[in-house]
């Protein structure tokens, strides 16, 4: 699949927007059809390049939100201030628009079903995007036990909220806990504080289970989660981190 693209030039392909999903007030998914796409692994990302009429080009990286699906690639983009690429993708892109992308890129923050070990996924904000590709892949073909903690400012900021609820409701080995750090509805049954060591100890796997852990979110979030996990006794080399990954700009 991705093996064919390991060596050689990473070529720009032309993708067409075939669907749009408003995920939250600040995040939108773009479903792209990309002829020539060679497939990818959950956790990988793409480069997007926009070219203005005068030739000016802007290039940014975005995590892929879905597992491999032929020539389909879905990205989820969050609004960033003065983001010259993200503002186009969020406010202007319409079905039928075309732009250039290349990939897949990334060999470290990557997971595929079939490894067998339990999986622990910890997301801060839009850090859920590459982790969602892993959850979706697990739902399609995997059997691994997955525990996932999602931290968001408020309920309406939780990207993929309903899909995460449905995944957990299947009760076939995927558990999702959402913590809301700024505001929460009255009677909110879940945690309402930042992810801390106690929460990770309670909701994650014991180190003896040797889980594979993926953490993605803002830099401060990722660093505090990773060091708390090491403090709990998890092996550092089994904790993979992505600092706000390629979802910005």
């Amino acid at each position, binding site marked *: 699949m991705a*093996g064919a693209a*390991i*060596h*050689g*030039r*990473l070529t720009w392909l032309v993708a067409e927007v075939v669907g749009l999903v408003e995920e939250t007030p600040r995040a939108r998914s773009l479903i792209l059809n990309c002829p020539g796409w060679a497939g990818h692994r959950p956790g990988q*990302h793409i*480069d997007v390049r926009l070219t203005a009429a005068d030739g000016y*080009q802007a*290039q*940014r*990286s975005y995590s892929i939100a879905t597992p491999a699906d032929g020539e389909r690639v879905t990205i989820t983009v*969050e609004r*960033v*201030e003065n983001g010259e690429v993200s503002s186009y993708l969020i406010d202007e892109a319409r079905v039928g628009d075309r732009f250039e992308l*290349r*990939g897949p*890129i*990334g*060999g*470290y*923050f990557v997971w595929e079903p079939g490894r067998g070990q339990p999986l622990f996924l910890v997301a801060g*904000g*839009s850090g859920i995007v590459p982790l969602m590709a892993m959850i979706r892949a697990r739902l399609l073909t995997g059997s691994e036990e997955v525990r996932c903690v999602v931290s968001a400012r408020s309920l309406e900021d939780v990207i993929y909220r309903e899909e995460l609820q449905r995944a957990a409701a299947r009760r076939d080995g995927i558990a999702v806990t959402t913590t809301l750090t700024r505001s929460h509805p009255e009677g909110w049954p879940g945690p309402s504080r930042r992810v801390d060591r106690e929460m990770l100890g309670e909701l994650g796997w014991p180190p003896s289970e040797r889980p594979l852990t993926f953490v993605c979110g*803002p*830099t*401060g979030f990722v660093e505090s989660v990773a060091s708390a996990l090491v403090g709990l006794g998890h092996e550092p080399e089994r904790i993979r*981190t*992505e*600092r*706000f*990954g*390629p979802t*910005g*700009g």
Partner: protein
Amino acid sequence: MDGERHLDGNSLGGRLWDLFGREMTDEAGCCGACGAVALLGQLVVYRDAPGEVARCSSCGAVSIVVVPTPDGLRVTFESIRWVDVGVGG
């Protein structure tokens, strides 16, 4: 986001591919300033500059700078002692 302007070295994966012709984010590199060894995907990348500045995640020294030019890219290897390039695939 929220004012956090730096990204992971993973976001530089496409540029590194331009330079090396292959996936490089999971290859190790050694900081020329402090000697720390880390995966290139773990570099800390800043995009506020005209281009991209990758710094060592241990000591903050500038490792690699990539600036677009009218003809392509100018890449400065500011402070990186070595990088691994796996050739087995």
